[in-house]
């Protein structure tokens, strides 16, 4: 077997709870994005385009969609005789079995997997971000510095800095201080959650960290500080491109809307750096007489008899005549009924919106039940929901997955309200 110089470990177990109903039944990396993709496609395609052909995907929370999506890795050319993509979920050991307790623990429970590949380096990725990055350039940087750990960083504003792990570096880029989500950041170089480690060194720290009772077993909180304290050679690798964490409803919506701009900051059409995903088997989309599409991204299989403005449509969306979709994201195979008007909303997969429905009209008041999640004026309709004809819905409304006509108490759902599957009407 040819020895691999570097393999990737992709942390895809996170729930992404701030995405609300979008991640109720799927891990955040499996959430649909950009008219065709799932969030994890960006990291996986980066691997494929960087020449990394061995990837372990660590799953934990609701892995069904993710497993289904990745399959044997064909779209990323990772259906390989040696290496390829391997799903690593928590498993029973001889005397016990346990969930992944943290990002570092997830890797340490899979030390055998990495050892078997015997790579010199490992790159740790998270399947949560939208970006294009050549990991082989980062590896060259790691090698050149004779580093033991290299952390990819991006410059953020001072206000944002306290949400990230912040690095302080010297002129050569060597890290001398690391602050995890600091109140008073000493720099604005934020960790992107992309790390290259020399495997032997990392393994040593993982094993040591695993034995500590007081550890959170987290890269940012435990492993990086421990290595820094030991004076290991750690460097920050500056990344200057587009990088978005789509962890909130607002950020998710914005990143999708970035794609419909005249010249999007993030280019999906670069033939040199394609983003791969399983292709749906659908004919090209069709715009009917009377239909109209402007400033939008539209995938295959859509049938458009109505109007689409500033929106992203995933494969197989049907827009009936006189419907108007504005500033919205409509996921695969949803159906928007005649005369319905949607503004600032996210419609999950296989949703049926009836006739003359209005969504996204009213005062911008945060969601009563989950103000921390739905407060940016965007209404979110969960997968498989059915919205009855003539319903009028406000802003920051949440419609549960598979909520049906029987779950709607009346024709009006005011801003900030929620409709639950099997919920009681007052």
């Amino acid at each position, binding site marked *: 077997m040819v020895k691999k110089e570097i393999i990737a470990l992709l942390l895809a177990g996170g729930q992404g709870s701030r995405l609300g109903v979008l991640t109720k039944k799927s891990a955040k990396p499996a959430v649909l994005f*950009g*008219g*065709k993709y799932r969030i994890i496609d960006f990291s996986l395609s980066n691997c494929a385009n960087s020449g990394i052909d061995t990837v372990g995907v660590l799953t934990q929370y609701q892995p069904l969609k993710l497993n289904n999506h990745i399959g044997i890795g064909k*779209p990323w050319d990772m259906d390989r005789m040696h290496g390829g993509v391997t799903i690593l979920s928590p498993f029973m050991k001889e005397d016990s079995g346990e969930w992944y307790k943290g990002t570092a623990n997830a890797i340490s429970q899979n030390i055998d997997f990495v050892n078997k590949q015997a790579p010199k380096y490992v790159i740790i990725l998270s399947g949560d971000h939208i970006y294009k990055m050549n990991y082989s350039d980062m590896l060259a940087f790691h090698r050149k510095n004779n580093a033991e750990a290299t952390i990819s960083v991006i410059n953020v504003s001072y206000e944002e800095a306290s949400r990230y792990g912040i690095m302080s570096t010297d002129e050569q880029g060597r890290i001398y201080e690391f602050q995890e989500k600091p109140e008073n950041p000493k720099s604005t170089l934020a960790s992107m959650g992309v790390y290259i480690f020399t495997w032997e060194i990392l393994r040593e720290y993982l094993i040591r960290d695993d034995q500590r009772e007081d550890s959170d077993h987290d890269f940012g909180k435990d492993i990086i500080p421990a290595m820094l304290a030991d004076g290991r050679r750690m460097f920050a690798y500056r990344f200057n491109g587009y990088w978005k964490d789509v962890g909130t409803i607002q950020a998710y919506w914005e990143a999708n809307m970035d*794609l*419909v701009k*005249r010249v999007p900051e993030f280019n*999906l*059409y670069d033939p040199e750096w*394609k*983003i*791969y*995903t399983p*292709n749906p*088997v*659908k*004919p*090209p*989309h*069709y*715009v*009917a*007489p*009377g*239909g*109209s*599409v*402007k*400033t*939008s*991204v*539209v*995938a*295959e299989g859509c*049938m458009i008899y109505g109007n*689409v403005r500033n929106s*992203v*449509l995933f494969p197989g969306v049907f827009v009936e005549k006189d419907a108007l979709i504005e500033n919205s994201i409509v996921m695969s195979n949803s159906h928007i009924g005649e005369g319905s008007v949607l503004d600032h909303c996210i419609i999950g997969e296989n949703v049926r919106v009836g006739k003359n429905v209005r969504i996204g009209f009213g005062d911008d008041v945060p969601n009563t039940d989950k103000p921390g999640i739905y407060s940016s004026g965007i209404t979110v309709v969960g997968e498989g929901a059915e919205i009855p004809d003539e319903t009028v819905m406000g802003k920051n409304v949440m419609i549960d997955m598979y909520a049906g006509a029987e779950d709607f108490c009346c024709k009006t759902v005011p801003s900030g309200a929620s409709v639950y599957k099997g919920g009681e009407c007052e």
Partner: protein
Amino acid sequence: MTMMTNTMGLILSGWKKPALKDLSYKRSVSAIPFGGKYRAIDFILSNMVNSGIKNVGVLTQYSSRSLMDHLGSGKEWDLDRRYDGLFIFPPTVSDEESGWYKGSADAMYHNLSFLKRSNEEYVVIAQGNGIFKMQMGDMLQYHIDKNADITLAYRRMYDYTAEELSGLGIIRIDEDSRITDLQEKPLNPQSDLASIGVYMLRRTLLISLIEECIAHGNYDFVKDIMIRKLDRLNIYGYEFRGYWRSISSVRNYYRCSMEVLDPEIREELFIRNGKIYTKVKDEAPAKYNEEAEVTNSIVADGCFIEGTVENSVLFRGVTVAKGAVVRNSIIMQGSVIEPDAVVEYAILDKNVVLTRGKYLKGDTDYPVVVSKNSRV
């Protein structure tokens, strides 16, 4: 529907169609791009796969390179199998083989070993240039119920003129649907029942018919086997009632492409009773800018639209720039319509550039064809 696990498929793809002009220059007619992302052969191949056939041979002759590139290992049709799957047979030259196939029966004869070593009971033979959706299991059931030696699928071509009919194989049938007459491209068609080029028969019968045909110095399946055996074998007609076109000229390619804009026809071809599979390209979804005015058109992934598009088919990765107009046209993969250029009633092959401000116009009956990689 009867699943056809006991049936193998043979697709005849190679014959040159001069009436396709530049569109079939350097490509087999079966490899002609169609419907925004497909090639003609995708339809018959998907029909076979959707009907449960797992062993398919493609006999190619003329310019088979683009076809072979398209088919690859057959994985898009789920035909990359350990046993059976997809086999492509271009002509070969060896001590016994003389190279080019002289006709359809000759092509089968040269690959008789494929027929002999397969073990399915039935063979369905079809052409690679038909645009249709067919559940072939129903035809097999009919073939068995009729106790037929050979069953030929036909369609009532109510939507064709007499002139168009004379380009097809025209049959006559008796009240029991037994075929009494079959004329290939008759000057004066005696009926509007046309063969759609799909035949079903036992594999062992096919082998003996081909051996007999070649032994007599003949080489064409229709002329030398079907027509000659009408009296001696039970040859039945099976009526196919769906949409069907055979791509054979620029004019009917254009017409058929435009017909696919009809939602009913598209529904039948692409949505109902199984999908149409094709080689995938990893293109991003299409992008529309502010100025886009698109109506009654098919748009594939990877297109970028800032202009006007009416009654047209845009293949993958087509750019329509600001002020450009595409009307009643078919624009193949990767072509660019530059700012303020206008194209009407035209077929632009792959990677054509219509430069800034140019005006190109054909006619419904005589669409302009611009060949691959041209700059106009």
